[in-house]
C-alpha cells in the first residue's frame, strides 16, 4: 500500500497541482488578452476601449465572463445534441493540453518529452475537429460553410508550419522543445531563419483563424460561421479556445525562433531577469503582433488565402528546408 501511495498517487497529485499551476494563470492571461486586444485596437483607432467596468475597464473580462455564464444554453432542434455539446469541449481541451510540453524556463516544464514538437503538431492538427464537429452538428448552412472553410484553411497552413518546423529541427538537431531552446543560446533562430519566422507568423494567423484570415467567421458573409448556433458557455468555450490557441501558437513561435526563455544577450543586467519573465515578455510581443495584424489588415478573399498557402508559402518553406540542410551539410555544421 505504501508503494502505491509514494509510487502512484502522490506523483499524480503533484502533476494535478502543476496542471492547475499552468491552467489557472493561463485562463487569467486569456481573459486579459481579450482586454488587451480591445485596448490596443482602441488605441490604434483613436478610441479608448473598455473604460467603465472597474478602473480603466480592468474588470471588463470578468464582467464578460459572468454575462456569458448566466446566459441560457440554446441547442437547436435539428442539432445532433451530443456532437453539438462535445465540439466546444474538444476545442477548449485541445487548446489547453498543448501547454503540457511548453518549457517556461530552464527545466520548468510539465512533461519534458523527446517528441515535444511533434506532440504540438499533433495537437494543433486536431484543432480542426472541434470546428468541423460544430459545423456539422449545428445543422445550419452558415455553420457548415464556416466549418468547411476553416478545416481547409487549417490543413493547408499546417503543411507550411510542418516544413518550417523541419527547418528549425535540422538546425537544432532535436525534437525536444527544451533542447531546441538551448540550441539557440547565442544565436536565436530568427536571425538565420528570418524568412521562415515571417512565414510562421502568417501561418499561425491562418491556423488560429485570426485576422486577416478569419474567413471561417466572416461576419459579413457567414454571420460568424461555425459558432453561429452556439450561445452562453458553449460559445464561451470556443472563444476561450481561440484565444488560448493564440497564446499557444505565440509560445511555439517564441520557442522556435525567439530563443524561449533565453535573454537577448548573455550580459550582466539582462541575465538577472529570470527565464520565465523573458518567455512571457516574448509571448506578449508575438500576441501584440496578432492584434496589430487584426487592427491593420483587411480580410483576405478565400481563393487568395488558398493561393498564398499552397502556391507561395508551401514551395518557399520546402525550398528553405533544402537550403538549410544543404548549407548545414556543406559546411559540416549539422548538430551531433
Amino acid at each position: 500500500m505504501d508503494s502505491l501511495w509514494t509510487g502512484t498517487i502522490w506523483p499524480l497529485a503533484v502533476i494535478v497541482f502543476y496542471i492547475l499551476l499552468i491552467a489557472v494563470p493561463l485562463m487569467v492571461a486569456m481573459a486579459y488578452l481579450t482586454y488587451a486586444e480591445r485596448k490596443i485596437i482602441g488605441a490604434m483607432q483613436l478610441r479608448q476601449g473598455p473604460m467603465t467596468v472597474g478602473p480603466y475597464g480592468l474588470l471588463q473580462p470578468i464582467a464578460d465572463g459572468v454575462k456569458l455564464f448566466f446566459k441560457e444554453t440554446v441547442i437547436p432542434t435539428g442539432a445532433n445534441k451530443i456532437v453539438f455539446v462535445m465540439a466546444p469541449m474538444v476545442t477548449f481541451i485541445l487548446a489547453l493540453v498543448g501547454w503540457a510540453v511548453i518549457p517556461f524556463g530552464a527545466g520548468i516544464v510539465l512533461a519534458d518529452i523527446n517528441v515535444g514538437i511533434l506532440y504540438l503538431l499533433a495537437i494543433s492538427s486536431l484543432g480542426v475537429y472541434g470546428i468541423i464537429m460544430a459545423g456539422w452538428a449545428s445543422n445550419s448552412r452558415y455553420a457548415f460553410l464556416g466549418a468547411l472553410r476553416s478545416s481547409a484553411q487549417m490543413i493547408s497552413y499546417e503543411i507550411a508550419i510542418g516544413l518550417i518546423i523541419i527547418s528549425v529541427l535540422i538546425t537544432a538537431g532535436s525534437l525536444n522543445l527544451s533542447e531546441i531552446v538551448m540550441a539557440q543560446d547565442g544565436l536565436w533562430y530568427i536571425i538565420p531563419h528570418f524568412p521562415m519566422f515571417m512565414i510562421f507568423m502568417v501561418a499561425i494567423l491562418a491556423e488560429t483563424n485570426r485576422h486577416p484570415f478569419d474567413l471561417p467567421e466572416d461576419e459579413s458573409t457567414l454571420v460568424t460561421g461555425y459558432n453561429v448556433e452556439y450561445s452562453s458557455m458553449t460559445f464561451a468555450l470556443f472563444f476561450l479556445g481561440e484565444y488560448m490557441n493564440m497564446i499557444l501558437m505565440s509560445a511555439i513561435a517564441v520557442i522556435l525562433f525567439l530563443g524561449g526563455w533565453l535573454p537577448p544577450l548573455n550580459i550582466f543586467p539582462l541575465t538577472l531577469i529570470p527565464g520565465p519573465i523573458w518567455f512571457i515578455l516574448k509571448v506578449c510581443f508575438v500576441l501584440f503582433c496578432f492584434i496589430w495584424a487584426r487592427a491593420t489588415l483587411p480580410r483576405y478573399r478565400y481563393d487568395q488565402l488558398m493561393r498564398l498557402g499552397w502556391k507561395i508559402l508551401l514551395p518557399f518553406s520546402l525550398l528553405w528546408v533544402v537550403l538549410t540542410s544543404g548549407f548545414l551539410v556543406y559546411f559540416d555544421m549539422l548538430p551531433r
Partner: protein
Amino acid sequence: MTPHLLLFYLFATVAVAAAVMVVSARNPVHSVLFLILTFFNAAALFILIGAEFLAMVLVVVYVGAVAVLFMFVVMMLNVNFVRMRQGFLQYLPVGGLIGVILLVELILVAGTWVVADTPEAIEPRPTTAGLTNTEALGNVFYTEYFYLFQAAGVILLVAIIGAIALTLRDRGNIRRQDIGEQVHRDRASAVQLRKVKSRAGI
C-alpha cells in the same frame, strides 16, 4: 496490478469498443468520430510500449489528416446507410469468406505468440540504449533501408500525381487570376474619366 497494466486495459478496452462502434454506429459521422477515438487509443498504447514517435506520427497522419478527409467525404456525400444495409445478404458470402480468411490468418499469427513469465518481461523497453525513438528510427531509415524508404516516397509521389491527373480536367470556362497582371494595372488603364450628360448615360 500495476498502474501501467491498468492503463493498458483501459486504452485497449476503449480501442476495441470504439472499433466495434465504428462498424455498428448508424450515423456515418459518428462512425468516423469513433474511428478517431480508436486511433487515439492505439496511439496511447504505442506510448505505453515506449514508441512515442510512432504514437505522435499516428495522431498527426491518421487523426490529423486521413480522418479529416474521411469526415469531409462522409459529411458531404450524405451516405444513406440504412439503404446500403438492404443489400447486406447479397454481399454476405464474399464478405464472410474474407472474414474467415482474416480470422485464420490472425489465428496463425497468434499461434506463434510466446507468453511471458512475468508482466515485467513485457514492460516497455527502449529499442536502442541511449538513443531516443526518433534517432533510432532515423538511423535505420537512412542507412539500411535508404533505398526502400526513397522508393516509398516515390510511390507516394506517383500516387499524388495520379490522383491529380485523374481529377484534373479543363472545363473550358475557368477564369484564372493573374496576380502579376492585376498588380501592374495603373491609373491610365484602370480609370476612365468621362463627362456624362444628365439622363443620357454612357
